[in-house]
C-alpha cells in the first residue's frame, strides 16, 4: 500500500506545529524557562518556543510552549481494531434478540470501584439515553439493570450471577493515576476466578477506553466516546450469536 506520511498541521502542510503546556516543580526564573524549552526540544519539537511562563507560587511554574514536531507517521500502515458488528437501530436489535435468543437479553451495568461518575453508564443504559439515542432500558428485548456508581467488583459479579446476566457493562470515566486499569483488571480476574468469564459478554466503556485496550485487559469490547446504546446493543447481540454458534459447533463434535 502507498505510504501516507502524516504530521501535525498549523497553517502549512507538514509544518508540524503543536502546542503543549505543563508545570515544572521549580520557581520561575531564566534557568527554569530554558529547562522548559529544552524539555520541549527533547519531546521532538524543533524551534520550541516558550510563549508564556508564569510563577505559580510554592515553588512551581507554568509554561505554554509551541514548536514543530519532528516526527511523522505512516497513516497507511496503521491498523486500529474495532469491535466487529453490524450497527443496527433499536428496533433492529430488538428483532434480532427475539429471533435468535427467544428471550430477553440481560445486561447488568455499573461504574465500578472508585468511579463515581455515572454519566457514561447512564447515557448507555438509562431510558432517556443521550443525544436522542434511547438507552438500553428502553429496549423491549433487554432487561437492563444499572447498578450506578462506585459498585464493588464483587457486588457486580454477585448481581450478574443472580440476574443470569448475558452481558456485563462497566464504565470508567474519571481516573486518578490510572486507577481505572487496576479496577478493570480486577473485575476481569474475578469473573475468571468465578468461572464466569466464558459465559458473559464483558464490555467496557469510557472516554479513555479503546477497543485495543479493552482486549488487552481481557474484555470482549471497548467503546470510547461517541458511543450510543445501539452500538453496545448491536455488538452484544452479534457477539452472543457468534458464541452460541461456536458452542453449538463444539457440542456437535462432542457428540
Amino acid at each position, binding site marked *: 500500500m502507498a505510504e501516507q506520511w502524516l504530521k501535525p498541521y498549523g497553517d502549512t502542510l507538514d509544518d508540524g506545529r503543536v502546542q503543549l503546556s*505543563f*508545570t515544572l516543580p521549580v520557581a520561575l526564573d531564566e534557568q527554569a524557562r530554558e529547562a522548559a524549552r529544552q524539555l520541549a526540544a527533547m519531546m521532538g519539537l524543533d524551534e520550541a518556543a516558550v510563549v508564556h511562563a508564569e510563577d505559580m*507560587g510554592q515553588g512551581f511554574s507554568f509554561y505554554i510552549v509551541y514548536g514543530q514536531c519532528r516526527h511523522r507517521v505512516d497513516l497507511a500502515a496503521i491498523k486500529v481494531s474495532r469491535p466487529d458488528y453490524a450497527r443496527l437501530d433499536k428496533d433492529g436489535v430488538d428483532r434480532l434478540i427475539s429471533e435468535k435468543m427467544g428471550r430477553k437479553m440481560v445486561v447488568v451495568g455499573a461504574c465500578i470501584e472508585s468511579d463515581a461518575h455515572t454519566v457514561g453508564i447512564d447515557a448507555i443504559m438509562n431510558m432517556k439515553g443521550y443525544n436522542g439515542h434511547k438507552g438500553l432500558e428502553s429496549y423491549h428485548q433487554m432487561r437492563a439493570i444499572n447498578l450506578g456508581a462506585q459498585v464493588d467488583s464483587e457486588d457486580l459479579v454477585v448481581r450478574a450471577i443472580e440476574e443470569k446476566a448475558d452481558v456485563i457493562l462497566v464504565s470508567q470515566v474519571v481516573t486518578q493515576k490510572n486507577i481505572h486499569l487496576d479496577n478493570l483488571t480486577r473485575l476481569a480476574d474475578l469473573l475468571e476466578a468465578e468461572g464466569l468469564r466464558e459465559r458473559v459478554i464483558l464490555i467496557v466503556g469510557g*472516554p479513555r477506553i479503546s477497543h485495543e485496550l479493552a482486549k488487552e485487559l481481557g474484555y470482549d469490547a471497548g467503546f470510547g466516546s461517541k458511543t450510543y446504546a445501539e452500538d453496545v446493543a448491536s455488538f452484544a447481540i452479534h457477539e452472543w450469536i457468534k458464541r452460541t454458534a461456536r458452542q453449538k459447533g463444539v457440542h456437535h463434535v462432542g457428540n
Partner: protein
Amino acid sequence: MTRLHLDQRQIDRARESARRIAGAVRAQMEPYTTTSVERATLRLLGVDGVDENGVPLPNRLVEHLQAEDLLAHGAAPVVIGAMLEQQSTVQQVAEAVAAGTLRLRRPANAPLVRAACDEEAGKRCAQIAAQRAAREAVIASFGEVRTPWLYVIVATGNIHEDVKQARAAAEQGADIIAVIRSTGQSLLDYVPYGATTEGFGGTYATQENFRLMRAALDETADRVGRYIRLTNYCSGLCMPEIAAMGAIERLDMMLNDSMYGIIFRDINLQRTFIDQFFSRMVNAFAGIIINTGEDNYLTTADACEAAHTVLASQLINEQFACLSGLTPEQMGLGHAFEIDPEMTNGFLWEVAQAQLVRQVFPAASLKYMPPTRHMTGNIFRGHLQDALFNVVSALTQQNIHLLGMMTEAIHTPLIQDRFLAVQNARYVFNTLRDLHAEVEFKRGGQIERRAQAVLDETGHLLARIEEIGLPAAIGQGVFADIARRPDDGRGLDGVLAKADDYFNPFPRLMLPGGH
C-alpha cells in the same frame, strides 16, 4: 439591584409547604436515636482513640451499650454515671470498657447524673464556642473576603500531600479548601483514626487529618492575609460524628445534605433523617456553614426538566436546617450550571435559575457548582464553559463558588488545571464586578418567564410532596430520578427507639432556645 419580578406569595406558599414537610419528618423521627448519634455524643464528651485492633473507642462503647441493652437510655447518662462512680474521666471509662475491665449499667441516681452530663457537656460546648469565637476573631482581623468565595478541592489521598496542594491553592487565590474523602468512606460505620496517607480518589476524614489541615491553613492565612476556610464531608453513616470532629477542630464548612445519603448512597432514610438533624445542630452551634447537594440531582436528571426539583429540595433543606438551628448565612444551598451547552439560549436558563435561587434565599450562602455532566475531553471548550459559569455566578451574586476545572471529564485536577481555573474565575469576577448593579432583567422577558415557570412547578411539586409525605415522595424517585424506600438502604440496624428516660445533654445546650 437586578431583580426578577416573581410572585412573592407563591414563594411564601412553597416555603410553608416545605416547613410542614420537614416538620412532619422531624416529628416522625423524634422518638428515635441512632448508633452514630450516640457515638457523636461520646466524641463530644471527649471519647477518642482506638483499641488494639484499631476499632474506635466510641464504637466499642456503643457496641457495649447495645450488648448490655442500655443504649436506648442514651449513651451520655450511662457513661457519665460510670465516670462519677469510678471518679475518672469519660476517656478512662471508654478505655476500661474496651479493655473488658468495666461493665456499664444503668446509673443509680438519675438527677445527679443528668446534672453531671449537663456540666460535662457544658464544658465541651464552651470549647466549641471558643473555636467559633477564634474563627470570628481571625476573620475580623483580616476582614471578610469578597464573594463569590473561590472553593477548591484537594484529593491526593495523602494528608501531607493535601496540605501542600492546599497551601499552593490558597496562595493562588482559593478562599475555601475542601478535602475530598476517600471513596466509600460514607459507607463506613466508623470514623478512621489518625493521620492517613492512603486513600482512593480522596483522603480519609479523620480528626487528626482535620487538625493537620487546619494548622496548615491557619499558617497560610497569616502569609496570604486572609482566613482560609476548611471544608469536609459531614455525610454518610457517620454524619453526626464528623460534625462533632469538625466542631472540635474548627472546620468552617461541611457538606451536609438532608437527603443526599438516601438518594445517592442508598443509606437508610430514617437513619439519615435522624443523623442529619443531630449533625446540623452541631454544625449550627459551631458556626459551620453547611453545603447541600442539590447539584447532584442534575448529574442524573436533566438540568432543564428537573430545575424545579432543585428548588423544591433547597426549600426542604432550608427547613430542616431551621429545625436544627442553622441561620440563613449558614445555609450553603447547592445548585449547578449543568444545562447542555448545545441548547439554544441555555445560558439564559442558567441565569434564570441562579437568579431565582438568589431571590428565593436572599440571605443564604448559596453554593454554586460548575459544569460536570457536559464537560468533555475538549479542554478548550471546557475552559469556556467554566468562564460562562463564572459569569453567572458574578451576575447573580452567588456566595460559595466551586471552581470549574477544564479537565473535569479527564482526571482529578493537575496543579496547572487548578491554577488556570483560579485565573479564569478571578478574571471574570474582577471584570464583571458591578455588572449586576448595572443591568436589569427585561420585565416579562424570557429569563423572567423561565424563572416564574420553575417557581410554579416547584410549588406544585411541594404541594404533592406535602400530601404524600417526603418518604413516599423519595420512594417515587422525585429527586434525581432515583427511588428509595423507608426500610431499604444501609444503616437501618443502627436506628433504635429511645426509652422513656432517654437523655442527651447536647440538644438543650446547642439548639437555640433549648430542646
